[in-house]
């Protein structure tokens, strides 16, 4: 099962790297879906026992992260009439370079991190979960479109998910399902917010939204 864990982790890693380097929002959404599908294998491959808990978690992750959220984001993108391009503050080549730097840092950080309780089933899990968290934050900070920031949030959450699945043995099903539910609600709220922002202002550029503060008034609406 270890090889399968590694494979799905590496697929997720490559999907994140491609998200950093791709210029189309639709492709980014698809890549995040690929990531979700790859990660839904993790509960099955890392656990020793096959009970209903494990299967429920895997199927729930697959449905929510692999199908439901990408479908909803695609729908939001179409309805809000978002342009196809990502429009980054930091270019795609530079993003990839930053991504490799973050990957190196995560591998180094994971190698020096002391783990008190038990060894993770694979050495890759820890660095890749760190990397997902870092690149999620990086995507949130470096992309102009609000939709890409939702995607960055999803990538970040995937990192936390890997960390939880692989390192915390026997997490209660209720906690996992609660996290998934929170994620769904969060993304739906963000999607609806994006839809309304774009209806109101005809764009979803996050850098122009700060014009809404009290000092400037609603000049940014133009």
């Amino acid at each position: 099962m270890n090889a399968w864990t590694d494979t799905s982790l590496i697929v997720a890693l490559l999907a994140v790297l491609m998200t950093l380097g791709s210029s189309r929002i639709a492709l980014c959404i698809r890549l995040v879906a690929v990531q979700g599908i790859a990660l839904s294998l993790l509960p099955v491959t890392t656990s020793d026992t096959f009970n209903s808990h494990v299967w429920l978690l895997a199927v729930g992750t697959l449905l929510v992260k692999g199908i439901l959220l990408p479908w909803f984001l695609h729908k939001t993108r179409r309805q809000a009439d978002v342009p196809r391009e990502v429009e980054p503050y930091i270019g795609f080549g530079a993003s990839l370079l930053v991504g490799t730097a973050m990957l190196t840092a995560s591998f180094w950080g994971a190698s020096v991190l002391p783990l008190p309780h038990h060894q993770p089933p694979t050495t890759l899990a820890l660095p890749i979960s760190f990397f997902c968290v870092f690149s999620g934050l990086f995507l949130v900070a470096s992309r102009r479109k609000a939709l890409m920031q939702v995607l960055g949030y999803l990538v970040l959450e995937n990192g936390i998910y890997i960390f939880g699945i692989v390192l915390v043995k026997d997490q209660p099903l209720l906690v996992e399902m609660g996290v998934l539910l929170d994620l769904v609600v969060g993304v739906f709220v963000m999607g609806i917010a994006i839809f309304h922002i774009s209806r109101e202002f005809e764009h979803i550029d996050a850098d122009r939204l700060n014009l809404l503060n009290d000092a400037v008034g609603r000049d940014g609406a133009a």
Partner: protein
Amino acid sequence: MNVLIGFILAPLLPGVIHRTKAIFAGRNGPPLLQPYFDLLKLLQKGAVYSRTTTWVFRSGPVVGLAAVLIAFLIAPFGGGVALLAFPGDLVLFAYLLGIMRFFTVLAALDTGSSFEGMGASREVTYSALAEPALLLGLAAVARATGNLSLSEMFGGLSCASWTAAPAPLALVCGGLFVVFLAENARIPVDDPNTHLELTMIHEVMVLDHSGPDLAFIQYAAALKLWLLGSLLVGIALPVHGAEPWINLGMALAGMVVLAGIVGVVESCMARLRLIAVPRLLLGAVTLCLVALLLAVWS
């Protein structure tokens, strides 16, 4: 022995690529041995030199061919040991290809043609991105096998290393395939068929060469295709049986399949826009870097 096979069979690879493309397009296409006929025809012709060129222009093809011939002595093929093998020869290998490129670029600049200057500038831009990918990929393989010489690295690879740690090797294969296409001016990066309008990278640099010089350049290009292809096949098909003939046969079959894959890629894809090529090469660098990190830390 392996070196001789490479020298003799190298021009066959472009022939296989052309055949694959012809089959895909439903044409008759050139015969499989057309590259040999071209080389013979060019060698019988005389060379024409422009009055503005100097010895640099004439030395370009010769040095290029010499560099790639020396690189042949280092590269192992078909599970055998290369003629020359010492720790760190993978760096020499990369830079022999670098010398070849450098002299091609110098010869192109020496003609004084702005057209060739543009091709030279693009060639060095792309190879500056392809070279880190090649070195990082070889470094990942070196790390995975624990050897620093190409012969020992490829001798150390086996089917067991694929089952033990498939991820780094697969990533290196992906990265090196992009390098292979870029360095040999194949389609997603450069279009080898159109000399003028579309590509203006590799083919445009050799516009002023004629006769035996052009034959040298084409033969050197075929040898380079064979060399980088043999690296790729060596990683993807590390079969080391007891019988040397079987190993050699497997490697040769791998080369033919690789040429077929290149033909399929060229038939199915259009050339990328110039702006998109650096991103592709950067992707290759990233793949190789991830492979190196995986090889180091797992």
